[in-house]
C-alpha cells in the first residue's frame, strides 16, 4: 500500500525511453494482438471444412494429399473444425461466447478419448465410420476411418488446453500453454518425419499414422491456442516488455534451432554426408558454440547498455520523486493515488491532515475517503469518479467533507487517469487542495457583494456607474430606472450626454474634459425620459470597475429644493426691488416733506414780515395822523399775532427738521450740555434770578445737538412756567439703573394736574391759556420726538401750583 508514486513529467520521458528499448518488433505485436491466433484458427477451420467436403464429395487428393500418404480421417477433420472454431471464438469474440468454445473443445477431446479407448481396449464404438465410410486397406490405417493414435492424443491435449486456457487459476494458462507446446512438438516431429521420410516420427508403431495435413493442422491449432494469451503463462517470458523479454526473444529462437541442427546432423551421419567425420562434427560443435558466445556477448552488451539507461532513468525518477516529495511537503498539497485494479488508495501525509485523521498505516483509506464526503456531495462525487474511470476523463472536482470532529472543509481535487497500452485505465493519481479558506472568503465576498449589490440596487436614491472614457452607463440601480423613466437597456445605450438637457451638454463636456473632479459635484440639470427637466445634486467618485476607470455617481433629486430656492431668490429680489422702491418713495416723500417744510417756513415768513412791517408803518403813520387807544390796541394785537405766527413757523420747521434728522451719537458729557444751555441764555437777569441745582451728570452716548435741544426746551419750559414765582428753583439731575439713564428737570413753577399728564407731550398741546404763559405747545413734543429717536421714554410728574418734574430716559 505504501508505494511511492511517480507523477512527474520527467519520469514520463524516461518511461518512453525505456519502452522504446524494450519494445518488440511488429511480428510480435502481431502475435500479441491476437491476430495471429485468429488467422491460424481460420486456416484450421478452412482446411477442416475442405477435408470434410473432400470426404463427402470423395476427393482423394484432398483426403490424402498423395496416394502414398495416409488420409486425414473424417473425425479428424471434424475435430479440427471444432477446435479451430474454439480458437476462433477465443481470439475474436466476447467472453460470453467462450463457453461455446469450451464446448467445442470438449467435443474434440471426447472424440479423441473415445478413439484412444478403442485403441486401448481393442473395441469399436462405431464412431470412426459414423458419417462416411473408408475403404478397407487404406494406407497406414489400423482400422478404417479411425484416426491415428497420436492424432487422438493430440486432440485430447488440444481440447484440454483449450478448455483450461481461460480459467482464473494462475497455473491454468501455464498448463494450457505447456500442453499446447507438447502438441506443437509432436506435430513438428511429424512434419519432419514427412519431410525427412522418417515414418517413425509420424507413426506410432502399430497404429495409424498421422496424415501430413493433420500434422500441419495440429501445428497450426496448437500455435493458435498457444498465442491466445501470449502475455500470460509460459509465453509471457517471450512477450514481456522488459529486458527479460528482450533477451528471451533473441536467445530462444536460436535455441529452437538446436534440435533441428541435431536432427540434421543425425541425418548426415546416417546418410553419410559431409559432417560424417568426427572432425567435421567437432568443427560444427565449435562453430555452434561460437555463434552462441557471440550472441550472448552481443545481447549482454545490449542489455548492459539498456540497464545503464534504465538505471539513469531510475535515478532521474528517484531524484524527481525526491524533489516532488519535498515540494509536496513544503506545500500543503495532498497527494493521492488510486490503483483501480486492486482498488486501493494511497494518501500522503497532507491528505491525512486534510481529513483530520492520524496516520496509523492500517486504515482503509478508500472507505474513509468515501465516508468523509459531505452527504450532499457524496453521490455527485462518486459519479464523477466513476465517470473518470469509465470514460477516462481527467478528474477535477470540488466538494465538501465532514471531518471526524464535525468540521466542514472544502477540498479541490485534480486527478489524472493513467492508461495502459490497451487504453484501459489502471490508475488515477492526483492532488488535493484544501480550499476552505478561499471558499469561505468567496462566500463572505459573495455575501458582502450581495449586501453591497443590495445597497446599490435597492437604494432609494438613483445611483449609477459610468465609464470614464466612453461616458456610457455601465450600471444603473432600480431607483435610477424608476426615477428617470428609462429602462435598463435604454440606459446602457446612452451616454452621460444624453441625460442632460441639450443646453447643458457643452458645459458638462468641458467639465469632464478638464477632468476637474471637483466640478463633478453640485447641482446639475438632468433630463427625464418624458422630457421633464429635474435638478439633481450630483456626487461623483472615481472608482475602478473591473479594471476600467469609472465613476460612481449618486444623484439626489433636489428639484423641489431648487425650485424653492429659485422662488425664494425671486421673492427676495422682488422684495429688494420693492424695498428699493419704497425707500425711493420714502426718500422722495422725505424730500418733498423737506421742501414742503422749507417752503412753508420760507414762503410763510415773507408775508409775515410784510404784515409786521406794514403794521409798523401804519403805526407810524397813525402817529402822524393821530391814533386812538383803540387803534393802538388793535395794532398791538396785529403785531402780536404776526409775531406769534413767526414763532410757530420756526418751531414747526425745527420740529419737522428734527423728525427727519439722523441721530449722530457720540460720547457726550450731559453736564457740559446743560451748562451750555444755561449760559446760552441771553436773558441775564433770568439766569441770575434762578437757583440752579445741577447734579453731577454722566457721560452718555447720544446726539449732542439733539440733547441740547431737549434741555433747551425743558429748561425754557421750567423758566417760563416759574416766572410768576418769586423764587425760581430748578433742579437738574439723573438716576441710573442697569438698563438706562433717567434724567430729570424739576422746577417749582406752576405745575400741572396729573389728570392731563398724557396730554403734555402732544403737538401744540397746552394746558394753560396763552395769556398766562406764552408758548406754542411744541416744545415737549420736540423733546419726546428726540428722546424717542434715542430709544428712550418721556414722562412728567406734577402738582397743580406746586411745580413739575420732567423725566426722560436714554437706554444704555
Amino acid at each position, binding site marked *: 500500500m505504501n508505494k511511492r508514486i511517480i507523477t512527474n513529467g520527467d519520469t514520463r520521458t524516461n518511461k518512453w525511453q525505456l519502452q522504446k528499448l524494450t519494445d518488440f518488433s511488429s511480428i510480435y505485436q502481431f502475435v500479441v494482438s491476437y491476430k495471429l491466433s485468429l488467422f491460424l484458427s481460420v486456416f484450421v477451420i478452412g482446411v477442416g471444412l475442405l477435408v470434410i467436403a473432400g470426404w463427402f464429395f470423395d476427393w482423394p487428393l484432398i483426403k490424402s494429399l498423395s496416394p502414398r500418404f495416409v488420409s486425414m480421417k473424417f473425425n479428424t477433420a471434424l475435430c479440427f473444425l471444432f477446435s479451430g472454431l474454439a480458437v476462433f471464438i477465443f481470439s475474436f469474440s466476447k467472453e460470453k461466447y467462450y463457453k461455446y468454445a469450451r464446448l467445442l473443445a470438449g467435443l474434440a477431446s471426447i472424440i479423441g478419448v473415445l478413439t484412444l479407448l478403442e485403441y486401448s481396449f481393442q473395441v469399436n464404438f462405431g464412431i470412426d465410420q459414423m458419417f462416411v465410410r473408408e475403404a478397407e486397406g487404406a494406407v497406414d490405417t489400423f482400422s478404417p476411418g479411425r484416426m491415428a493414435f497420436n492424432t487422438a492424443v493430440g486432440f485430447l491435449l488440444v481440447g484440454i488446453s483449450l478448455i483450461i486456457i481461460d480459467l482464473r487459476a494462475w497455473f491454468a494458462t501455464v498448463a494450457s500453454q505447456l500442453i499446447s507446446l507438447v502438441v506443437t512438438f509432436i506435430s513438428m516431429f511429424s512434419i519432419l518425419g514427412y519431410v525427412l521420410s522418417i515414418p517413425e516420427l509420424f507413426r506410432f508403431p502399430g497404429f495409424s499414422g498421422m496424415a501430413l495435413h493433420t500434422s500441419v493442422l495440429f501445428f497450426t491449432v496448437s500455435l493458435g491456442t498457444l498465442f491466445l494469451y501470449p502475455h500470460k503463462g509460459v509465453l509471457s517470458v517471450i512477450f514481456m516488455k522488459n529486458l527479460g523479454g528482450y533477451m528471451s526473444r533473441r536467445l530462444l529462437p536460436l535455441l529452437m534451432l538446436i534440435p533441428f541442427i541435431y536432427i540434421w546432423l543425425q541425418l548426415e551421419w546416417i546418410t553419410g554426408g559431409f559432417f560424417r567425420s568426427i572432425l567435421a562434427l567437432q568443427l560444427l560443435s565449435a562453430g555452434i558454440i561460437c555463434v552462441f558466445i557471440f550472441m550472448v556477448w552481443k545481447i549482454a552488451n545490449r542489455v548492459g547498455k539498456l540497464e545503464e539507461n534504465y538505471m539513469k532513468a531510475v535515478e532521474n525518477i528517484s531524484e524527481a520523486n525526491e524533489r516532488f516529495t519535498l515540494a509536496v511537503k513544503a506545500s500543503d498539497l495532498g497527494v493521492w493515488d488510486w490503483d483501480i485494479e486492486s482498488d486501493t488508495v494511497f494518501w500522503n501525509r497532507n491528505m491525512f491532515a486534510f481529513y483530520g485523521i492520524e496516520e496509523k498505516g492500517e486504515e482503509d483509506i478508500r472507505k474513509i475517503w468515501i465516508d468523509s464526503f459531505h452527504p450532499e456531495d457524496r453521490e455527485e462525487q462518486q459519479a464523477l469518479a466513476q465517470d473518470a474511470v469509465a470514460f477516462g476523463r481527467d478528474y477535477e472536482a470540488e466538494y465538501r467533507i465532514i471531518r471526524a470532529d464535525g468540521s466542514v472543509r472544502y477540498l479541490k481535487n485534480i486527478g489524472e487517469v493513467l492508461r495502459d497500452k490497451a487504453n484501459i485505465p489502471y490508475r488515477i493519481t492526483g492532488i488535493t487542495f484544501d480550499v476552505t479558506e478561499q471558499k469561505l472568503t468567496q462566500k463572505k465576498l459573495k455575501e458582502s457583494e450581495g449586501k453591497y449589490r443590495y445597497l446599490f440596487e435597492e437604494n432609494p436614491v438613483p445611483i449609477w456607474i459610468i465609464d470614464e472614457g466612453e461616458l456610457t452607463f455601465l450600471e444603473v440601480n432600480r431607483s435610477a430606472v424608476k426615477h428617470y423613466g428609462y429602462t435598463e437597456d435604454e440606459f446602457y445605450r446612452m451616454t452621460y450626454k444624453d441625460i442632460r438637457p441639450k443646453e447643458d451638454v457643452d458645459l458638462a463636456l468641458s467639465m469632464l474634459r478638464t477632468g476637474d473632479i471637483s466640478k463633478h459635484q453640485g447641482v446639475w440639470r438632468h433630463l427625464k425620459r418624458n422630457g421633464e427637466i429635474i435638478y439633481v445634486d450630483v456626487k461623483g467618485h472615481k472608482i475602478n470597475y473591473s479594471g476600467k476607470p469609472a465613476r460612481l455617481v449618486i444623484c439626489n433629486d433636489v428639484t423641489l429644493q431648487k425650485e424653492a430656492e429659485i422662488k425664494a431668490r425671486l421673492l427676495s429680489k422682488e422684495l429688494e426691488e420693492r424695498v428699493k422702491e419704497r425707500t425711493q418713495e420714502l426718500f422722495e416723500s422725505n424730500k418733498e416733506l423737506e421742501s414742503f417744510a422749507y417752503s412753508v417756513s*420760507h414762503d410763510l415768513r*415773507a*408775508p*409775515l*414780515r*410784510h404784515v409786521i*412791517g406794514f403794521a*409798523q*408803518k401804519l403805526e407810524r403813520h397813525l402817529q402822524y395822523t393821530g391814533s386812538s387807544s383803540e387803534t393802538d390796541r388793535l395794532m398791538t394785537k396785529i403785531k402780536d399775532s404776526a409775531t406769534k405766527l413767526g414763532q410757530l413757523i420756526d418751531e414747526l420747521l425745527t420740529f419737522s427738521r428734527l423728525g427727519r434728522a439722523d441721530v449722530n451719537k457720540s460720547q457726550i458729557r450731559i453736564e457740559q450740555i446743560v451748562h451750555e444751555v444755561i449760559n446760552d441764555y441771553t436773558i441775564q437777569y433770568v439766569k441770575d434770578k434762578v437757583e440752579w441745582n445741577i447734579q453731577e451728570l454722566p457721560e452718555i452716548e447720544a446726539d449732542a445737538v439733539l440733547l441740547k435741544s431737549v434741555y433747551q426746551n425743558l429748561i425754557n419750559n421750567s423758566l417760563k412756567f416759574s416766572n410768576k414765582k418769586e423764587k425760581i428753583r430748578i433742579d437738574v439731575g439723573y438716576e441710573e439703573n442697569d438698563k438706562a439713564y433717567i434724567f430729570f428737570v424739576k422746577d417749582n413753577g406752576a405745575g400741572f394736574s396729573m389728570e392731563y399728564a398724557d396730554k403734555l407731550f402732544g403737538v401744540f398741546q397746552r394746558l394753560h391759556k396763552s395769556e398766562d404763559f406764552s408758548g406754542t405747545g411744541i416744545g415737549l413734543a420736540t423733546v419726546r420726538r428726540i428722546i424717542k429717536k434715542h430709544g428712550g421714554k418721556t414722562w412728567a410728574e406734577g402738582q397743580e401750583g406746586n411745580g413739575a418734574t420732567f423725566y426722560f430716559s436714554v437706554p444704555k
Partner: protein
Amino acid sequence: MEIRLKHVLVVEDSENDLELMLDVLEEHKLANKIAVARDGAEALAYIFKSGKWKDRESGNPTLILLDLKLPKRNGLEVLKEIRGNELTANIPVVILTSSKEEQDVYEGYRLGTNAYVVKPVGFDDFARAVKTLGIFWALINQPPGNK
C-alpha cells in the same frame, strides 16, 4: 460823515419787501441814488447798461442788494454774471434773502458775494438789518475804486 453810497442797486421782486427796504434806506438817508430792478434779467440789463437801461447814467453801482428768489434770472445767476465780467467784478454785493439754506449760502460765497444776510422774519429786525448794512457799506466800508 460823507455818504458814500452814491449809487445803490436794489434787486428785489417782492413789492412789499421793496417798499419796506426803501423806507429804511430813505429814513436813514443812506444812499444818493437808488435804482431798482424787479427781476434778474432787469438787474443784468441795468448793470451792463443794456436793454431798457442802456441809456442810464454810466458808472457801476457802489452796492448791490441782491435777493435770490427772482423771476427770470435768479440772484445767483446774476451774481455769477457780475463776477464774471471784469468791468463789474468788483462791485460789492450783499445777498439779502429769506433763504437760510446752506446750499444757497455756500453757493453765494463761492460765487463771490461780499455778504450774505437773511431777511429777518420780524420787521424790526429786518429794518435794523437793512440799516446796519447801509451804515456799514455806506460809512464804514471802503468801496472799491474805479480803474
